[in-house]
């Protein structure tokens, strides 16, 4: 932890305000301020799809793709304007009542089993695959056996900091 004088705020506050230990965002953090470009629903929860300002300005392939429907590895999501931005990793976390059936299901859908923990598997989707469709396809394929209990998409928030 580092004691940093609050500069950004000082102009906005009265002369009575003391120097504080509030940090300022770094230039790299400021470069990642985001713009909402769409929305998506995962397991009944609505998220905004966002693109970083710099990606938008530079018209990167990622920013172009984010305007398209669906969800892909690398897409950025935000639940509300104060919540953290989360990056879609392309990993699916699936709980099951039958791990061997789930592994067969994964193979049939071209998903790589990264690891398993008890009744939960971490599956990696191929780069470029549309993840909401993959989730739907897994559920449809599993409809008869009913071994899949829950599918989560991994979202990486990078909210952990040195403290």
């Amino acid at each position, binding site marked *: *932890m580092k004691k940093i004088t609050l500069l950004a705020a000082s102009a906005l506050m009265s002369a*009575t305000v003391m120097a504080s230990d509030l940090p300022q965002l770094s230039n790299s953090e400021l470069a990642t*301020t985001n713009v909402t470009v769409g929305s998506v629903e995962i397991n009944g929860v609505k998220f905004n799809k966002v693109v970083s300002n710099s990606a938008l300005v530079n018209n990167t392939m990622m920013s172009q793709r984010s305007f398209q429907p669906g969800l892909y590895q690398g897409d950025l999501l935000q639940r509300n304007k104060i919540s953290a931005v989360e990056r879609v990793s392309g990993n699916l976390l699936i*709980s099951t009542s039958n791990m061997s059936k789930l592994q067969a299901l994964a193979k049939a859908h071209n998903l790589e089993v990264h690891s398993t923990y008890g009744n939960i598997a971490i599956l990696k989707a191929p780069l470029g695959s549309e993840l909401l469709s993959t989730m739907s396809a897994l559920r449809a394929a599993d409809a008869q056996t009913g071994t899949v209990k829950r599918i*989560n998409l991994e979202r990486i928030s990078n909210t952990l*900091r*040195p*403290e």
Partner: protein
Amino acid sequence: MSSKLLKTSLAILPLTISLNIAAKGNDPLTQQQWHLKNKGQAAFSAAGGVKGSDLNVRTAHKKGIKGQGVKVTVIDTGVEIAHKDLAANITSGSRNLVDGTNDPVDDNGHGTAVAGIIAAVGYNNEGVRGIAPSAKINGFNFLSEQSLTSYLASHGESEGTKDSNVFNQSYGGGDIFPRAYDLENDLELAIIESSMKRVSMNNDSGRGAAFVKSAGNGYNWFRYGDFAILPGNYFSASDDGEIRNDGMPMENSNAEISDSNFWNIVVSAFNASDKLSSYSSVGSNVFMTATGGEFGEDTPAMVTIDLMGCDAGFNTTNEEATNNLHGGTDIDPTCDYTSVMNGTSSAAPSMSGAIAMVMSANKKITARDAKHILAKTASKVDKKNAGVELPFTDADGNEATYQAIDGWKKNGAGYNYHMFYGLGKPDVSKAVSMAKRKGKKQYKKLPKLKTTPWMNRNTHLEIPDANTTGATSMYNANVHNKFVIEGVQVKVDIDHARMSDLSIELISPAGTRSVLMTPKSGAFLGQNAIAVPITSMRDQLMLSTNFYGEKARGNWRLKVVDVGGEGDGEWLLFDLATGEQTPMSPDNNSEPGALTNWSIRFFGHQGK
């Protein structure tokens, strides 16, 4: 006078001290490491602290216990594994989670400073000394790549960590929204819990591992995403003769779901003056406190290693030094050490080092035994601290008070406890002595760890507004009469429109009160900061270490008290990008809240 000369002259005093010590063949900066032995030294700041406010490490070192045979994994911004005062203690297993190499490059310096607190090489005539100066270290730059797979690789699920005995986690992230402990639906949380349990119990061929976690630096404010969460009077309190947030912590460490996990040993920070570090988050989940210091300018921070060279890390020549060590001074011309490392980030490695020392003293004990020995031998910090009495406006508009944080109190098993400090600070030499005992007084290992099932109480109790009477629900825990508590977890369901008014207490059969969630914290402020306010918490998880050693069997009471009335409750959402302040002054709840459900479970063992 050039700045370089100024820096040199500032360093004269410590330089004199260091040369004397160097002549004895010891690590020249170690005399300034107050956390090892506090003699009131200034540690390159303007003023020293209080003699004895330390970890009492020296005697154990003199007896030859230095952490040998114990492996500590540092999960952080990375570790400079080639550092001249660390390299000899680096062992295999490090990984760069960004590029896949074995060099966990640290671009920040934080992880390297953490590693130095634990196990900077000792007695090598270089710089500083770790608390466990012969322990082995590996590192991961997890904070640069925070995916679940990176988490698992760095926290025990990789070849290089399967024999680690301690995992140091000097990181965290505040939360302002209720989050359910729902392992059926939150699969990431379920995987992490399952993995932590396995690693804690089985790592290193059954010796197990301790996960040590910083409590957070949020007593005065804390960060949430690109915002700082502040009390309403943060900027005006001093001029108005007020106390910020009425003296209550903004961040209660129980609000972060990973910190209310039993497998994490959560550590708060104290300073060289034997007080709570000015920034340290606190909560009933704090197991113990350890050295964190202050900022290294006016009073001591930690003295540890820094990224080598004067262009990287905390100690550089790029900015004017604010202490007597930094800036290319004669005492450290190549800027390889720092005296401004602080935070609960420093307290966690202080605890990790202490655990490594105890495990080193007795190769037959487990990581859990080491934790237990440190608890049994802990000593008080800030003995006279009386806690915090919160003033509030009651439902009739009268001024009232509520004892929100107790001072030091003995629990039903005779352990001293304070929410600021947990069971106290490590006394490393005393703990090592206990671990090494032979004969009739030999340390007896803890019986096998047991976890009870969740026990549920469905209820519907009204929580009166702004009234200390509160709502109290009782549960008779019918567990084995010899079940001894090592930790208690509670899940609660509460409906309430302004959750920051709430104090959630748990009272044991022995009569010990633990405040699981303090009022006026920022834990749930997000409920009123979004378009559709959240009016309930479901399965909100909280941990208490306050009942350590007590018996679990008997009547447990959960009491929820609303201590916020009209006019109470003002906060600021401070945008760190723009400096914009958004006041948050949620109206007092118009309807009384309700406690609708709660569950309790115990971690511990059967026997004495």
